[in-house]
């Protein structure tokens, strides 16, 4: 059993949990994910690692309730436990590998996070800071109330730009607008990491392709085992079939076939779930994550 040591509600529908999982904490690096299963009847739910403490043997996860399983997970309290907690899975972010340090030091890095994607960006920025590498972070949200991790991020980012769609906090506009604004004032980047809803990552990639910034995105297709055994997570990257759980989850965003990926993610939505998603994605299209510019 993997005990939940603490639980916090960060924003509407967004929860943070610290879970005891020594093996995962011992080995993991930013960019990797875990699979959690609540109990015997639960699903295997993939979630990105948002922080880790090697000494304490703990992993921090942040999740948004979107359907039945994440909803059920949100009812778990500190003191209770996950029956299964598997990881770390996937490959670490290319930026956060000791063997790439020299190359990484030469890069001008910008992170763009949308919605719940803020959480998995945090450990990457933190790792870079610990290795003396500065990074710019653009954090987007629909409004002030949905923002979280602002203080955490301030501590580790060289420059932090927060933007809200409605202007209730920080820059009035979306992350893509913010990036464009920085670019226009002469800031230059050559490596971007974007994590958030698929639609948001797609729009970030559209802009960074125009600006010529290499962009890594973290793909979150449907998964079952997370070890390369089922093929549920297959996505098209530059015409090649890749299994996101073992080849990813981070890929060159300019090569990802977004339309195919978005269609595949719909598979298990029930009629009800699909309606909910349409609703949500509808909002996303109006800048729900604060970054995608999907309404333009």
């Amino acid at each position, binding site marked *: 059993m993997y005990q939940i040591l603490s639980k916090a509600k960060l924003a509407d529908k967004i929860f943070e949990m610290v879970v005891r999982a020594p*093996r*995962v904490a*011992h*080995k993991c690096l930013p960019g*990797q994910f875990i699979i959690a*299963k609540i109990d015997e*009847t*639960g*699903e*295997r739910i993939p979630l990105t690692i948002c922080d880790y403490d090697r000494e304490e043997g703990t992993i921090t996860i942040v999740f948004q309730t979107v359907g*039945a*399983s994440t909803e*059920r997970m949100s009812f778990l309290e500190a003191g209770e436990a996950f*029956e*299964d*907690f*598997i*990881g*770390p*899975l*996937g490959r670490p972010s290319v930026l956060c590998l000791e063997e790439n340090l020299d190359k990484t030091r030469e890069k001008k890095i910008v992170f763009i996070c949308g919605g719940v994607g803020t959480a998995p960006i945090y450990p990457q920025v933190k790792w870079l800071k610990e290795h003396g590498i500065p990074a710019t972070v653009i954090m987007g949200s629909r409004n002030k109330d949905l923002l979280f991790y602002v203080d955490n991020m301030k501590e580790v980012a060289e420059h932090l730009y927060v933007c809200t769609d409605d202007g209730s906090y920080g820059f009035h506009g979306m992350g893509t607008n913010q990036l464009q604004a920085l670019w226009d004032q002469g800031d230059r980047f050559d490596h971007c990491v974007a994590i958030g809803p698929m639609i948001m990552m797609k729009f970030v990639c559209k802009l960074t392709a125009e600006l010529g910034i290499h962009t890594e995105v973290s793909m979150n297709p449907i998964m*079952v*085992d997370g*070890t*390369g*055994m*089922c*093929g*549920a997570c*297959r996505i*098209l990257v530059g015409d090649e*079939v890749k299994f996101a759980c*073992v080849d990813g989850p981070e890929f060159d965003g300019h090569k990802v076939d977004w339309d*195919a990926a978005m*269609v*595949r993610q*719909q*598979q*298990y939505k*029930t009629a009800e779930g699909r309606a909910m998603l349409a609703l949500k994605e509808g909002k996303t299209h109006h800048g729900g994550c604060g970054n995608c510019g999907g309404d333009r």
Partner: protein
Amino acid sequence: MAQDMMVRVPIAEQEPAVRAKNFEEVCLGYTEEEAILEANRCLNCKNPRCVAGCPVSINIPAFIQEIKAGDAAAAYRTISLSSALPAVCGRVCPQETQCEGVCVRGIKGQPVAIGKLERYAADTAAARGIMPENHSKPNGHKVAVIGAGPAGLTCAGDLAKMGYDVTIFEALHRAGGVLVYGIPEFRLPKDKVVRHEVENVKALGVKIEENVVIGRSVTIDELMEEEGFEAIFIGSGAGLPRFMGIPGEQANGVFSANEFLTRNNLMKAYDDDYDTPISRGKKVVVVGGGNVAMDAARTALRLGAEVHVVYRRSEEELPARAEEVHHAKEEGIIFDLLQNPTEILVDEKGWVKGCRIIKMELGEPDESGRRRPVEIPGSEYEISCDTVIMSLGTSPNPLISHTTKGLETNRRGCIVTEGEFGATTKEAVYAGGDAVTGAATVILAMGAGKEAAKGIDQYFKNK
């Protein structure tokens, strides 16, 4: 009425029309009386050909004589000397090409139902709570086994019986390998049979740590350098699914058999109490003709679909066990033989709406000795369907070989071993089962696990 020694004692099965709608076991097994009658048919041959046909050389005539004498427990002990998973093998071995295929009874009549008798002995022992025993003294050496499939479980059990301190590391949340995620409940009950056999291995002193993905959670080198394991056995199977590479394969409604079966078996999607969803198709095309294809087809049927098995060779070449093909037909699976899909047709929303299929004929034999299927030009046609399940075989997952220094694999990604004991190119590391041979059978994987246990023991003795 006198017993007809030429034919088998019939075994009770669920009626096809009934079982096509449930996930209960198809074959109900022999009663004691039936088992004894069937055991009567064994000639207790002096040179038993059946034993030579069994990859782990179970003393078949001996255990059958014990059943005949009414001592199922003794029969179980006899089998246990050679096999760690008798309740499994009795159910899933391709007996017709192994033990039963060479039984002398089969020359004039039907071979003795060796598999069914093996199952009877194991089930009876389980029902009476008889467990294997371990009387060995701990020798203090730590061995790690990777993967809790038939190869890993067997190797671990044998090593424990020799006194080794064995820990199995399993990537999934449940031990059993293909026995839990691949082979369906209606052929191999998970709680009654697989879990019980896993408990038996634990009873020998083997520790099982689930949720550990070797190559990610920890590497083989770390197990040896940091966790004090002195030798390793790799039984990680061949779980990487293959796709055809035809247009439309990315569409929603196209699954690998592994995904479809894992959702249903490991995650129990067929049971409403479990959260994992599965696509219940109305009309399903399963591509392939092996055991995996039969299992996927019969699972889809039980979930309510009309099912077509599309296979590019003819009935004779179907690689599945004869019993499974027979059961599948009885249940109403439609076989479209000598045919092959060339494209999956996709609707405007990205979902499968059909398949384009070409007819084949058999040409010259290929390197496998089977006649090669060749396309008949102009024979393409379309069939409508909402689900396609690709069951084209699997290969070993590269996760371990990519993260282990000095472990060689061949062109097909299989771990290279030398000699009969499964020694790899890396010192103190052994391997066996599907990870070495590519997808094969339960009993061959067990045999490899057994040999590797001997090899590892030798390694320590020579050290």
